[in-house]
């Protein structure tokens, strides 16, 4: 990641209502181009994170190459991945079973 509302979010996190097997992780991957300030902005816009939480996830992406930014049902996870893609961030979905 490089130094430096359109809010189409799906429904709120209802992960606790689902079994573990049905949970999916939305994982944002690092790239060397995206500005840190941009990624913080995206996390705030898409997930409603405050500055502290958005920055924490951004630093995780920057330092570890990835960050799990949301966990929940597949359908919602896909909607989040789509929204992140609209912001030109690369996001993958991983089943809870892989974690």
């Amino acid at each position, binding site marked *: *990641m*490089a*130094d*430096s*509302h*359109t809010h189409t979010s799906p429904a709120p996190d209802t992960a606790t209502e689902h079994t573990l097997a049905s949970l999916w992780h939305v994982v944002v*991957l690092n*790239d*060397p*181009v*995206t*500005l840190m*300030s*941009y990624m913080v*902005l995206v996390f705030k*816009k898409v997930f409603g994170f405050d500055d502290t939480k958005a920055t924490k996830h951004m630093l995780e992406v920057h330092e570890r190459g990835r960050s799990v930014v949301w966990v929940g049902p597949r359908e919602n996870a*896909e909607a989040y*991945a*789509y929204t992140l*893609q*609209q*912001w*030109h*961030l*690369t*996001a*993958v*979905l991983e089943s809870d079973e892989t974690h």
Partner: protein
Amino acid sequence: MKHIEVKLSLPVVAPLLDVIKTAADTLQGSLAAPLGVQDIDPEFREAWTEELLRSQNDELATLLALFDKEFFATGTVSFDAENGEVIVRACAALRLRLRCTLLKTVADEALESGEIAVETLTEAQRTAFMCYLFLATIQDLIIQHIDTLSADS
């Protein structure tokens, strides 16, 4: 509606516009960030891609529209709540595309830090790198003011 007006140096920015336009053209039919989600229904995937391409093209058109007759007359561009986020996204898409095209031989570490020995670059790469930095500057500027711009919309 609140807006930010930025006066740019025409002699510096004008030569970058051809690179920006060319990069934007190459994005007409492909996404700046390839779809990360692989295991989805092919029809669903196609619909996603079409929608994403449409919004990406709209973003690029909004960015390119900044550099109109008025810009060439005054050197001024204007950002507001309506176009700010869209332009920030267009800049992100273009920077990703420059990385994959004109800057593909530049090491990721160098792109990430922005510290590049420009004398090692070809003329085309140098202009592309200037573009890459220019787009980041626009992004930073808008991001710094985005809350102010939105507050009044």
